[in-house]
């Protein structure tokens, strides 16, 4: 133990705590330290400004450490104080807004709604993102009364929040958007493999961050491999279960699943897409959005014998055009992915900086 471990009041701080909040250290890749016991209590005092641990503190790391270590009303209160404090940096406030989605939902929703008119559009967008994850039907009215965001991104996140809440809760709100786009030819088909049992449980355990308020089906999921470089995982809503696949998705609009990106090097997963389904007279409308609110894929599932046949296409957001096909019965779900091998959508390059 060195004198670096002694705080301003003479209190001694653990090595684990100091490592988790140091501004001179970072974990690679994922940097989401988890603390226990007295360390969490010490951390709360540091974040409240009641203790100075005597080291250079990275408050973003400290906020993340608190959120990953304790989900409580008290932790939510501390996060809200940081979120609403203009004296904190945008970086720290953004993470506080983000992390509120990991707190008890009632406290988190109230805190987020109190900050939905934050003066920073960057912070505001993060508040909307978190509301999309934990908000309930009662947030919809509040969100509808908000002044229009000034930036396109904040507007998108607000729209996604309304949609996610509406689809999750079944409340009326903005519906899914349809943006069908015809695609070209030359497709390569990738099998979407079902994943079950221990393998699926490992993927679920590797999941970092919010699940947008839904429980995940522990029995059935899918692995989607597009070549060697990217593996995605489709997690189904726990309400979408074998024996009632069709009945469940046709019972009402819902977040039917989440698609995560698997970081193969460290076997960690973060959510990249939301799968939103709406029953229609014809069958089922399906929209897949990125977590920033961009609609990525749209399609529908139509009756086919005793099941439904699904066809989805990207809307041009992905650089490589993709079509997803599938067939569902109450007992079985099969998916395949067709990737267009033609010329990809060009990347954007920004602008040169001329000083």
């Amino acid at each position, binding site marked *: 133990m060195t004198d670096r471990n002694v705080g301003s009041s003479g209190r001694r701080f653990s090595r684990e705590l100091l490592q988790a909040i140091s501004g001179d250290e970072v974990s690679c890749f994922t940097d989401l330290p988890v603390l226990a016991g007295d360390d969490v209590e010490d951390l709360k005092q540091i974040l409240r400004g009641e203790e100075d641990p005597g080291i250079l503190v990275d408050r973003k790391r400290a906020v993340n450490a608190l959120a990953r270590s304790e989900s409580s009303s008290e932790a939510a209160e501390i996060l809200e104080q940081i979120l609403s404090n203009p004296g904190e940096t945008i970086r720290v406030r953004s993470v506080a807004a983000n992390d509120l989605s990991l707190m008890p939902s009632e406290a988190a929703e109230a805190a987020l709604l109190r900050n939905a008119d934050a003066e920073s559009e960057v912070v505001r967008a*993060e508040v909307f993102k978190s509301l999309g994850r934990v908000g309930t039907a009662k947030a919809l009215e509040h969100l509808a009364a908000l002044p229009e965001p000034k930036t396109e991104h904040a507007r998108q996140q607000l729209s996604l929040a309304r949609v996610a809440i509406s689809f999750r809760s079944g409340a009326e709100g903005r519906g899914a958007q349809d943006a069908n786009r015809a695609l070209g030819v030359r497709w390569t088909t990738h099998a979407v493999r079902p994943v079950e049992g221990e393998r699926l449980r490992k993927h679920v355990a590797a999941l970092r961050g919010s699940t947008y308020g839904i429980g995940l089906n522990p029995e059935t999921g899918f692995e989607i491999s597009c070549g060697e470089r990217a593996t995605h995982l489709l997690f189904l809503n726990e309400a979408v279960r074998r024996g009632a696949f069709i009945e469940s998705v046709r019972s009402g609009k819902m977040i039917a699943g989440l698609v995560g990106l698997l970081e193969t090097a460290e076997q960690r997963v973060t959510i990249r897409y939301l799968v939103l389904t709406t029953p229609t007279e014809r069958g089922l409308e399906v929209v897949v959005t990125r977590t920033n609110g961009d609609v990525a894929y749209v399609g529908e599932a139509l009756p086919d014998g005793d099941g439904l046949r699904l066809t989805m296409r990207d809307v041009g957001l992905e650089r490589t055009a993709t079509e997803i096909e599938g067939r569902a019965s109450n007992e079985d779900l099969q998916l395949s992915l067709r990737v267009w091998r033609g010329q990809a959508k060009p990347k954007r390059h920004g602008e040169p900086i001329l000083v």
Partner: protein
Amino acid sequence: MDISIKNAALLCLGVSGTVSVRRDIYGYIWGPMARTLSVKTHLKRIRTNAINLCIFLVGHEPDFSGMFTPANAQTMQFAVDVTRELYAQVGVSVRKLFWRRIPLDEADGFNVVDASGATNLTEAFSGPNDGIDVFFVTTITDAGGWSSPNPGGGPCDKDEKGRTGAVLELQSTDFFTGVLMAHEVGHYLGLVHGSDMTNIMGADTNNDGIGEINSGSTGITASQGNTMKSHCSIRLPC
């Protein structure tokens, strides 16, 4: 063989006419910039085993009304300087810097990203040049930086799917930002996490299964240097 500054600038950096040492030789566009590296040594280094970097400021406006301040921009330059010194230990240099910006109204929320957002960012944007793309964002919610997760390093074809660049946020000190840049670009060049906290690829010191680095993670081995030199991003001698 010694060559003049003007010749080196022309052959290695493609600049001619009146040459600004800071801007054209080092690639530092925001002044002032304190350096200890001599021009002669720098020119000698960049002639072999060099990479170029294309550094994006995400959500940046020329009058600094966007996501970054002048001090932030200088931190990025300093980080490059640190990376240059760390890589020089194994004979790898950073030759050319391409500075680019993504305007605020085109940033699409990429100012604040997690691992997936970092992938989305590099899939949406890339530098129109042979530099390894390095994106500075305001906030990475779940890390300090993200780079290619592939053991063999990142691709040189920036149109490939997946993460085609490194994504960083500014750290608490200029020097540590440089260590982090060396770490993440090191991943892109094929380096993997290690077991020595004094190495740029760090070690898992708290046994949580995740490696750490700190500002003392500045070492680099000859073997790591060889890995870096075998990556497709290494430029031809000039």
